[in-house]
């Protein structure tokens, strides 16, 4: 817990300090060329730029903790509001892709582990290794090339994006391609990790015991072997989240899905630095929290870990 707070503190200092990486007077850079003295004064007050740096940090962090991340001078809308609108899309995308990845990786890993080095295992092993070397941005471009263009499926844009609650069919349709793309990357990792752990677990004595009792293969896999083999799987899922987010950024940008990634990249292109800073902060803290939750779940699945 102390560790978690420490990490979040380091992240907040890091995100805060980003503004000072800008060359020259941050106020001028943030406001762009059309900076009026009036706007400059507002920004100076908002960021507290005329005070010493530690005081600037405290002003900033207390604002952030009150849900106020400033107002973007580019779009004239509040940073916190923009993030709140985009965040659900990321969460939905991540949820969908993880469901897909687990739903394919777990049964296939079990199938492979049943006969290691058998024909099915070899084919799956070779193809998962190949997929490991295909970055998500190539998958998405190839998918657009072969599915959207060849089959004539129309491209969705940020303006045509519909939320899940207003029309869930259209919503799922527009998220299908990005979710599949992100799922491929996760699938490869989960499949490989779970396969090798299952093979190791299946050699344990309690499995031989279960077999000798005449318990069916299927039941042994799901009830006896799966749980002790899932620790590394959960660990890799936790680690995977960060990479998934970054992959998600590119995928969102390419398919114009207005989640945090899309918002971040348009903000970078428009030099909307306050929005970039806000998104970096929210996403970093989110990743750390998700990792923390996964550590917690691992402790429940395998209580030996916390006792060590």
């Amino acid at each position, binding site marked *: 817990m102390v560790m978690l707070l420490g990490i979040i503190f380091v992240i907040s200092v890091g995100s805060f300090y980003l503004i000072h990486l800008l060359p020259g007077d941050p106020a001028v850079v943030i406001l762009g060329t059309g900076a009026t003295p009036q706007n400059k004064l507002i920004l100076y007050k908002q960021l507290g730029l005329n005070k010493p740096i530690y005081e600037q940090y405290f002003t900033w962090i207390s604002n952030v903790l009150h849900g106020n991340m400033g107002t973007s001078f580019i779009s004239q809308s509040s940073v916190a509001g923009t993030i709140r609108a985009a965040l659900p899309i990321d969460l939905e995308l991540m949820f969908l892709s993880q469901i897909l990845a687990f739903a394919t990786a777990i049964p296939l890993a079990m199938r492979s582990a049943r006969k290691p080095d058998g024909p099915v295992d070899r084919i799956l092993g070779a193809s998962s290794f190949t997929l490991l*070397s295909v970055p998500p941005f190539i998958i998405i471009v190839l998918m657009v090339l072969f599915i959207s263009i060849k089959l004539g499926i129309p491209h969705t844009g940020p303006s045509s994006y519909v939320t899940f609650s207003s029309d869930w069919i259209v919503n799922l349709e527009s998220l299908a391609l990005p979710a599949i793309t992100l799922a491929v990357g996760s699938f490869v990792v989960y499949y490989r990790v779970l396969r090798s752990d299952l093979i190791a677990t299946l050699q344990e004595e309690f499995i031989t015991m279960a077999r000798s009792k005449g318990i069916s293969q299927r039941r042994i896999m799901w009830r006896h072997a799966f749980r002790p083999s899932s620790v590394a799987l959960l660990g890799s899922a936790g680690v995977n989240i960060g990479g998934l987010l970054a992959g998600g950024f590119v995928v969102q940008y390419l398919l114009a899905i207005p989640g945090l990634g899309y918002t971040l990249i348009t903000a970078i292109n428009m030099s909307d630095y306050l929005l970039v800073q806000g998104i970096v902060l929210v996403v970093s803290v989110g990743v750390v929290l998700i990792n923390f939750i996964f550590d917690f779940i691992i402790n429940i699945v395998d209580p030996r870990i916390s006792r060590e």
Partner: protein
Amino acid sequence: MSELLEEASLVERPEKNKPLGILFWICVGWVALNVIGAIFANVLPLQNPLFEDFSAVNVGPGLHHLFGTDDLGRDIFARVVYGSRVSIAVGVGAMLIGFGIGAPLGMLAAYRRGRFDMVLTTVMYVLLAFPAIIATIAVLSFWAPRALAKIILVIGLASVPLVYRVIRTATMSIATKDYIIAAKVQGATDRRILVKELLPNIAPIGVSFLLIGIATVITLEGALAFLGLSVNPPTPSWGNMINEARTVLAENPWLVIFPSLALCLFLLCLNFIGDRLRSHFDVTEVKL
């Protein structure tokens, strides 16, 4: 005493290693070919990657243009070869920085232990929790203007905690072995133990992680190029070639296929070599 040492090293010697196989050497050859191509791109008989020939726009693969031309009439083959320069430079450069800082620290921490190790490891684990990819995107988007050296530096520094962890774990598993203790008893200096005893033994793990790390960094550079955070066009890189090709996907699919293929094959070979080396030296305790 020296006989005792010899005996110890005999006992420690692993059983016969798994052979590397023909695929391994094909991959080594492919990586070498790419690296040579990247280094000697301006000496090789290639067309100018920036020359725009508007009389031959979007030509398919053929004799004159091996991979065809893009929407501005530039030779795709030349651009793919020149593009490998950015990818390989970022991959190798960033990993050299990461290993240059992370590896010595990891070895020292694992060898010395004590307070030095504790403080350093805590700091590194805090840094490791910070999502490195997001940190890289953030720093690069604020730190204008963009340049190759900055990209290498930022990714390199971001990789230090991970390299530190891998090398520390690897060193720890060796630092307690008998031959290290024997060397200590013999009065070998710390420097000698670190350089002559520990370094050769963690080198295989290091090299295998280095190769997989380079592949990861190259992927990251590609993603950065898509986000407009890598080198600026018209300088070709595999990432920005694929990104630019998106707009003419329907008219000229070769434009996206060739750089994608070059990138994926290179990554596949690096991953394969790294993976093979790891299983060849039978390292199981280091999980990436």
